[in-house]
């Protein structure tokens, strides 16, 4: 198609939009409502993901180690299990039996004897697939953390306990996972590593968070898909009405030898124009609504942990433009295609 024709047809598309301004305004109004709803769905979903992500990050797993403290506090049977292999070997070779210390614990009763072994265990855990990071927390550090986090004002009492009975906490590996949906499988792998005693975790919470995030993603997708279909129907309807109001022109066009694309282009331009105008209005309206809503929420909850509109502004505008343009192009092509193939008559009386 020649450039002059394209220019003429684009101009015609603009003229048509203005000529059918009442219908165009109505379509823009409904499209803006759809786009704002889509934008809100995206913003709510992103904020929920952020909040869940924060929760997820806090949900670390503590893998306690079979060290001296563990041997001291656990049942005799457990200690024997841990040291069975070594004892058997010693018996077979006829070495002298190992002497227990003042607490009755032998070196073979536990697995992790020093900080190096503890760190080596942490390295083993870190090599597992779904593990993001591992930090070694000694029994002393663990106790300090508990005092700091949970026992404010009662530190003295616990110092007393500490002095009298010693630190009851074993050393632990503080494990952060990459994907919480693989939580259980990773947990099982950690438990199988020699030297790991018990694992303290909030497995249920982790999996619930993971499921919730997935659910939010699916819900968001369907909301956007449904609203996109609504947008498409709205634009198609506007184009159809415009088309019938231009029946005479179309019949003359076809009678004098216009190609289908020549007939289509002004309608496509009109569809795109409606989509673009709607995208601009939606962006503005959504920005205003989001700002008001977030200011109120932040003031009420006393938090600033919320996604800024500017972080998503460009993406949302891009999404609106895509929705508008796709709805405009598909809507007009389908409608005019149907008309040209089935209803458009060049010769019969209109």
């Amino acid at each position, binding site marked *: 198609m*020649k450039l002059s*024709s394209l220019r003429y047809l684009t101009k015609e598309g603009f003229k048509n939009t203005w000529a059918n301004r009442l219908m165009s305004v109505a379509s823009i109004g409904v499209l803006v409502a759809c786009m704002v709803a889509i934008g809100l769905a995206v913003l709510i979903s992103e904020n929920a993901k952020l909040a869940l992500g924060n929760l997820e990050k806090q949900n670390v797993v503590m893998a306690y180690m079979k060290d001296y403290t563990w041997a001291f506090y656990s049942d005799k049977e457990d200690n024997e299990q841990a040291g069975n292999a070594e004892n058997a070997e010693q018996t077979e070779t006829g070495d002298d039996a190992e002497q227990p210390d003042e607490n009755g614990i032998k070196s073979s009763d536990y697995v992790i004897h020093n900080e190096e072994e503890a760190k080596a265990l942490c390295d083993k855990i870190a090599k597992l697939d779904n593990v993001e990071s591992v930090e070694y927390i000694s029994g002393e550090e663990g106790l300090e953390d508990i005092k700091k986090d949970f026992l404010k004002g009662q530190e003295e009492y616990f110092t007393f306990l500490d002095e009298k009975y010693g630190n009851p906490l074993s050393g632990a590996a503080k494990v952060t996972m990459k994907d919480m949906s693989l939580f259980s499988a990773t947990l099982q792998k950690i438990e199988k590593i020699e030297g790991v005693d018990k694992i303290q975790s909030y497995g249920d919470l982790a999996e619930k968070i993971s499921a919730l995030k997935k659910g939010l993603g699916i819900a968001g997708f369907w909301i956007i898909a449904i609203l996109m279909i609504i947008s498409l129907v709205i634009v198609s309807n506007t184009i159809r009405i415009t088309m019938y109001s231009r029946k005479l022109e179309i019949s*003359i066009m076809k*009678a*004098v*030898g216009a*190609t289908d694309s020549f007939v289509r282009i002004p309608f496509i331009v009109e569809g795109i124009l409606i989509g673009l105008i709607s995208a601009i209005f939606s962006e503005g309206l959504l920005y205003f609504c989001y700002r008001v809503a977030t200011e109120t929420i932040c003031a009420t909850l006393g938090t600033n942990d919320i996604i800024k509109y500017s972080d998503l502004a460009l993406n949302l505008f891009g999404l609106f433009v895509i929705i508008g343009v796709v709805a405009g192009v598909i809507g007009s092509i389908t409608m005019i295609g149907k008309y040209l193939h089935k209803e458009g008559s*060049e*010769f019969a*009386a209109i």
Partner: protein
Amino acid sequence: MSEKTVDLQSFGGENNNTVIEFKDVSKTYQNGTHALNDVNITINKGEFVFVVGSSGAGKSTFMKLIMREEKANTGSITVNGFNLRKMKRKHIPMLRRTMGIVFQDFRLIPKMNVFDNVAFAMRVVGAPSRQIRREVPKALAAVGLGDKARSMPNELSGGEQQRVGLARALVNNPALIIADEPTGNVDPNMSYEIVSMLTAINKQGTTVLMVTHDHSLVRDFKHRVIMLDDGKIVADNLPGGDEE
């Protein structure tokens, strides 16, 4: 292939003196109506032909088949070198660009002035603006409306509106003009004027096919007359009274 240089042979057409040729053409609509039955007719370059017949005789179907708005069930149709039976839908615009159409109800676009209504036919075929500015005044002058270019259709009489329609049909220099009862909505004097204009155009070599109910026009303008009745050609009178 550019839109302007269409190779007619590629559409299965024959490039000779024949403008319209119907061979054993029949058309039956899906509702069972037999509109045309075994029609055979040849119209040559430079002829002026009246098509007459009562309502339901098959005139409209005859015209629709020529424009390829409808497809024949049997037989073959050739128009301006295009074999309509073999023709693909996407090539129909090329066929239509070789003909100019004048409608009974004028079909002028009310929101466009006279100039733009005529220019519209040129824009559709992708003519450049300079050519449009040159050709439209010529076409308007040819139908005696050189001074009405800026008038709106509702400011014109019925006869003037039909002359605008005629200018629009002429502006692309078609080889064939199809006029569907062009005098149906104008007074008798204007009817004579319009047919006179068509005759003048025909004398310059353009083939004209005109459907009419007006027997006085048929009688007074001595052109070939094809009479249709019940989907068949019942008479084909050549100018001067000879019957084929």
